[in-house]
Structures are given as structure tokens and as C-alpha cells.
């Protein structure tokens, strides 16, 4: 595996992304079963919030709702970014979040580079080969970017997910669901680095985790299912 390089913004827009997030009574039920009670939360300007709780307490569901991938049964989510009116719709949030979770997969028949380039292109920000190399190197996949994802180890796939979530390093809201899953010590350090960089830029981070090392990255914790 290639040397991990310092995670740094590769776009000019990555300089400052002061954002705020407000959740008002966000609730999700599947039939009669409520998986997420009413969650109310406010976070702004570089905050890192660790969402903790036992298995099945709704951590991943909460992150997916905030990402705009799942509809809340009730409640409101408002994301505010500089220079734009408050974003309340799911499509608006989808376009502005960086998300990595264990159930997010990338195309196994494509290479790591092709995956990053494809998703960047459909997101409206095509990457040059140099830019994709930089993004791969930033997560320690510098030497393996042209291998198909099908031959990646679980740790390498997780690193690629992190590269996908990080994008150009300018997402106002970073949503990381168990980001250190399957990662070695250097990978765990990479997660810490990503979170630190997001904080410096004024972007928000929500970390769904039960790993004490990840919980320690947060400025505060929200406990679900308590």
C-alpha cells in the first residue's frame, strides 16, 4: 500500500466552510417499530459530534436521514452554509455532504481511480488524473489506485470510502459511520486527520461510533437509545 500523505484540501473552495446544522424532533419508524426517537440537535462552525449508542439504537439511520438518503417519519433538518439560503430538502443536503458508512459500496469491477473519477463526474466536478491520484494518495492508496476494487482488502475499501466521503475536501458536513472499521493504526490516524481538517475549515462532522478512539475525536457526544 502506498504511503499515506497529509490530508489537505485539493480545491480552492476547501479553505473555509462554516456551516451549521439543526435537527428538530427527527424521528424514524419502520411500521410500528420506532428506530429513532425524536432527536433534537444543533451544531455549528467546526464542531465534531459523536453519535453513540448500542447496536440498533439508530445511529446509522440518523446519519442517513441527515445525508438525505432516508426520509424521517417526523421532524425537520436544516443545514446552513455560507452564501446560500437554509437547506431543508434532502436533495440539497445530498449535494453538500460527504458520507461514508459500512453499507456504502463502490464498484468492484472498476479501479479505485475510476470510482473516484466517476462519482466526481456525476457530481458535476470532474477530476483530472492528477487530482484523482492526489485523492488516492491522501488515503494511502497511492500505489493501488489502478487496481480493481474487487481485489482490495476490507481496509483498503474503507480507505476508498473515506476518499469518496472527503471528495474535494470542502463538504460543509461530513457524516462518518464507523469510519475506523477494518482500518489499521495508520488508517485510524487518517480518520483523525480528516476530522481535524474538517474542524479547521469550519465544517461540521457527525461520527456514528462506539469506538472510544473515535468518540474522543468529538467535541461532544449524543447518546442514542439511552
Amino acid at each position, binding site marked *: 500500500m502506498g504511503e499515506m500523505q497529509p490530508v489537505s484540501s485539493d480545491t480552492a473552495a476547501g479553505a473555509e466552510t462554516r456551516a451549521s446544522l439543526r435537527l428538530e424532533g427527527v424521528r424514524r419508524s419502520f411500521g410500528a417499530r420506532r428506530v429513532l426517537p425524536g432527536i433534537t440537535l444543533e451544531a455549528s462552525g467546526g464542531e465534531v459530534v459523536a453519535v453513540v449508542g448500542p447496536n440498533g439504537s439508530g445511529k446509522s439511520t440518523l446519519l442517513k436521514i441527515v445525508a438525505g438518503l*432516508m*426520509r424521517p417519519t417526523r421532524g425537520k433538518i436544516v443545514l446552513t452554509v455560507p452564501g446560500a439560503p437554509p437547506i431543508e430538502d434532502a436533495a440539497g443536503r445530498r449535494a453538500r*455532504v460527504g*458520507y461514508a*458508512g459500512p453499507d456504502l*459500496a463502490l464498484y468492484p*469491477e472498476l479501479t479505485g481511480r475510476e470510482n473516484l473519477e466517476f462519482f*466526481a*463526474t*456525476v457530481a458535476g466536478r470532474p477530476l483530472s488524473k492528477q487530482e484523482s491520484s492526489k485523492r488516492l494518495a491522501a488515503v494511502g492508496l497511492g500505489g493501488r489506485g489502478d487496481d480493481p476494487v474487487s481485489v482490495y482488502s476490507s481496509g483498503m475499501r474503507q480507505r476508498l470510502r473515506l476518499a469518496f466521503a472527503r471528495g474535494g475536501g470542502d463538504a460543509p458536513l461530513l457524516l462518518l459511520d464507523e469510519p475506523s472499521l477494518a482500518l489499521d493504526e495508520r488508517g485510524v490516524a487518517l480518520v483523525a486527520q480528516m476530522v481535524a481538517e474538517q474542524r479547521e475549515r469550519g465544517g461540521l462532522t457527525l461520527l456514528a461510533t462506539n469506538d472510544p478512539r473515535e468518540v474522543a475525536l468529538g467535541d461532544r457526544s449524543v447518546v442514542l437509545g439511552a
Partner: protein
Amino acid sequence: MSWAREAGAVFAKEVRSEWRTRVALSSVALFAVGALTLIGLSLYVGQGQTGPQTAAALLWVLVFFTAATGLGRAYVLEEERGTALALRLTARATAVWAGKFAANGLLLLALAALSAPVLLSLLKVNAANLVLLACVLTLGCVGIAAVFTMTSALVAQSSAKGGLLAALSFPVLVPLLVAAVHGTNAALGVGNESGAFAAGAGDVQLLGSYAVVAVTASLMLIDFVWNEG
């Protein structure tokens, strides 16, 4: 970034993925080759001759079931492999649909272009009007690809994907299949070229209208089907 470039990127990804995995290609080719071989064997054993009506029906049976075998995987595979999440986060639902529809349409058209001449030569049926036959095949394949791509998105998150796909698509495709069989029969059966075109012109219009409606309706509805949020 224009919508067309976004759809084009999805199309290119579909073609590249298909070329590397050959998931749809192998199942579609296997079905087509198997069906054509069986038709050939039955004719050899029976020493019989078939008319244009039977040839038209057999051709569309082949196209429909080939589509049911191969095209339904467009969205199903995204859900099964977990790549749907990344796609939902980055691409517009309509662009994803358009890219997948274009790839499905290309696959079906290629199959029809290869299997129709083989089938017609096996059945010893000549086309009275090749242009009409090409029009009917092209428009029919476009309509079928649009319906199967949309149905694939509908059933992708259900538990009985395989059965549902054909069950939902067939009733919707009945008007198209009726016009396609009738139009193909006209292209194969009526003695001279102009007579064949006169007999099949209405079917071409119907197939064209069906394709336009299927594509438009899919583009209008896909966002509700694809994105939960």
C-alpha cells in the same frame, strides 16, 4: 455540469462495468442462442415452413424474454451490491435513469440486430421492407428498454425481484408488443415494399408514441422511485 454529461457518465460506467463483468451480456446471449437453437432444431425435425405471422411472433417472444432476462439488473445490482447509496449521493435520479436506459437500449438493439437475421433465415422468411423492419425493431426495443429500466428501479428494493420484474412489465408492454408483432408481420409478409410500409405505418407511429410516453413518464417519476429522502 450539464445533465447530458451526467447521464453520459452513467452510460459510460454501465458499458464499462458490463464489458468487464458480462453479467447481462452472458445471460442475454445465452438465452438468445438457446432460443434460436431450439427454433432451428424444431424446424429441422419437423421439416416445416413457417409464415411471416409466426416469424413475427417468435421474434418478439425472443426480444421480450431476452429483455426480461438481462435488462432487469440495471437497478437491482446497484441495490444488491450497495453502490446505490453512493450513486444517490452524487447523481440526479433522472441522469442515472437515462444512462441506464441508454445502456439497456444499446444492449437490446444489438441483440435484435444480431438475432433477427438469424431467426428469419432459420424460418426461411424474407423481409418485404427492410426499412420498416428496422424501424419496428428499433422503436420496439427502445420502448421495451424504457419499461424494463423503470420496472427495474421499482422492484430493486423488493424481495421478489425476478418474478416481479416480468409480472409488472408484461401488462405495460402488451400494447407495444401487439403493435410490434403486427408491424413486423407487415414488414415480412406483404408482397411489395410500398404495400408493406402502408400496412405497417400505423404500427410505427404507435411504437414511436409509446417510446416517447415511456421515456417521458419514466423521467417524470424516477425521482420518487429512486430517492426516498
